[in-house]
C-alpha cells in the first residue's frame, strides 16, 4: 500500500501540487489521470522520491518514505520498479543486460541464475527473442516491454508506470495495459500508473485519481467515471465526440 498524505510541491512561485491525499491499494492497478501540466508527473516523482514534497508525507506501508535518511530510502527503492515514459533503457547495454542490471547490482545470484531470471522477465512480457538486441534496434512498443521487464526483475512490491502508452499505437497500448494489470495481480504489487489515455482508464483502472490544476479533483473506479458529476473530470474524460455519445448513452440507460 502507498499513501500520499497532504502532499504539496512548488517550484519557485508556482504551486504544482496542492494538498493531495490519496491511498493506493496493494494488488490493484491505480491510475493517476489528468491533463498535461496538471501535476501528475510531479506527483509520481514525489511518490518515488525523485522530488521531495514541500509538505506532507509519502507512506510505503507503515513507513514514512520521504522522511527516511538516504540509506534507508535506498533499501526501499530496491523494492520499487519503475517504467519510464521513454523507457529509460541503458543505450550501451543489450536488452538482456538491461534487465540483468538490477540483479547485478542488488543480488548475489550467479551469472546463470541472473540470465535465467532476465529471460523469465522477457518471456513474461512476450519478447523472449530480443535479449541480444540493443534498445536502438527495437520498436517503441518493445522498449516499453523491456522497461516493464526490467522494472519487475527484482520482483518489486511497488510498480510505477509513467505514461506507459505514450507514442504507441492503440493495439500495442492495450497489450501493455493488459501486461501491467496481469503482472500487478500475479505478483500482488501496488501499481500506480500515470496516464491520460482513456482506453487505459476504462481497461485497467481499478482505482482512478483525477488531478486537476495540482489538486485531487476526483477519485473512484473506472466504472464510476461514467456516472460522475464532476465537471472537470467529465470535460477531460469525455473530450471527444465518441466519448460524449457514450456518456449520453450511459445516462439514458
Amino acid at each position, binding site marked *: 500500500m502507498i499513501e500520499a498524505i497532504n502532499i504539496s510541491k512548488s517550484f519557485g512561485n508556482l504551486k504544482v501540487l496542492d494538498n493531495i491525499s490519496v491511498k493506493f491499494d496493494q494488488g490493484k492497478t491505480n491510475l493517476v489521470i489528468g491533463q498535461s501540466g496538471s501535476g501528475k508527473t510531479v506527483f509520481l516523482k514525489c511518490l518515488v522520491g525523485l522530488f521531495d514534497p514541500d509538505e506532507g508525507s509519502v507512506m510505503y506501508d507503515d513507513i514514512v518514505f520521504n522522511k527516511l535518511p538516504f540509506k534507508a530510502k535506498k533499501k*526501499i527503492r530496491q523494492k520499487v520498479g519503475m517504467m519510464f515514459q521513454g523507457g529509460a533503457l541503458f543505450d550501451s547495454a543489450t536488452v538482456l543486460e538491461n534487465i540483468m542490471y538490477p540483479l547485478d547490482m542488488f543480488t548475489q545470484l550467479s551469472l546463470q541464475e541472473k540470465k535465467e531470471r532476465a529471460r523469465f522477465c522477457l518471456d513474461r512480457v512476450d519478447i523472449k527473442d530480443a535479449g541480444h538486441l540493443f534498445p536502438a534496434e527495437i520498436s517503441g512498443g518493445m522498449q516499453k516491454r523491456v522497461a516493464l521487464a526490467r522494472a519487475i526483475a527484482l520482483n518489486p512490491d511497488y510498480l510505477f508506470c509513467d505514461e506507459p502508452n505514450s507514442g504507441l499505437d492503440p493495439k500495442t497500448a492495450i497489450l501493455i495495459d493488459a501486461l501491467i494489470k496481469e503482472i500487478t495481480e500475479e505478483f500482488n504489487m501496488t501499481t500506480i500508473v500515470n496516464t491520460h489515455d482513456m482506453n487505459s482508464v476504462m481497461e485497467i483502472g481499478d482505482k482512478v485519481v483525477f488531478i486537476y490544476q495540482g489538486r485531487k479533483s476526483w477519485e473512484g473506479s473506472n466504472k464510476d467515471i461514467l456516472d460522475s458529476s464532476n465537471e472537470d473530470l467529465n470535460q477531460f474524460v469525455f473530450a471527444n465526440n465518441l466519448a460524449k455519445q457514450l456518456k449520453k448513452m450511459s445516462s439514458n440507460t
Partner: protein
Amino acid sequence: MNILIQIGKYFILLSKVFAKPEKQSVYYKQIVKEVHSLGLNSIGIVVIISAFMGAVITLQTAYNMENPMLPLYLIGLGCRDSMILEFSSTMIALILAGKVGSSIASELGTMRVTEQIDALEIMGVNSASYLILPKIIAAVFFNPILTIISIIVGVFGGWIAVLATGVVSSEYFIIGIQYAFIPFYVTYAMVKTVFFAFIITSVSSFHGYFVKGGSIEVGRASTKAVVYSSIVILLFNVILTQLLLS
C-alpha cells in the same frame, strides 16, 4: 554568486561520487570499460599529435639556432624537455579535454535527459558514483600512460624529422636527448597529468550530470565541459608549476 553556487554543487557532487560503492565487482567492470573508452581509444590521437609536434619542435628549434656558439645537441635536448615539461602533459590534457571531456558530458547529459539517471536513482543506485567514479579512476590511472607514450613518440617524431630534413645530424640529436636529463621533470609531468585527468573527468561529468532540458542543452553542456576543463587545466598548470619547480 552563481560561480560560487556552481563550485558548491561541484563539491557536493564529488562527495556523492566518492561514497562507498554498492557492489565493487560491478564497479570494476565499469572501470575496465572506461579504460577502454577513455584511455585506449585516445592512444591514436595522442600518437599522431605527439609525433608531429615532436617533429615541429625539433625543426623550429633547429631553424632558430643560428648562433654557431650554441651546441647542436641542444636541438635534441629542447625537443625532449619541451615534450616532458609541457607538451605531453599540458597540451595532451587540453586535447583530451576536447575529446574525452565532450564525450563524457554528452554521454551523461543524454542519460539525464532520457531519464536513465533517474532510473538508476529509483533502483537505489548512487548514480553519481556509479557513472562518474569509474571514469575518474580510469583516467587518473591511464592518462600517465598516455603521457609516457606521448613523450616517447614525440622524441621519436623529432628524430624522424632530423633524419628526413638533415637540420642536424642524428648523432647530435641523440646526444641531445641524453644530455643533462633531470628525472624529476618526468615526476613533474606525471603529477600534472594526474591532476589534469581528475579535472577533465570531474568537471566534464559535472556539466553532463546536471543537464536540464533536451538535446540543445546536452550540446551546450558538452561545449561548457571542454571550455571549463581547459580553463581549470591552465590555471592548475600555473599553480603546479610554481609549486613543483620553484
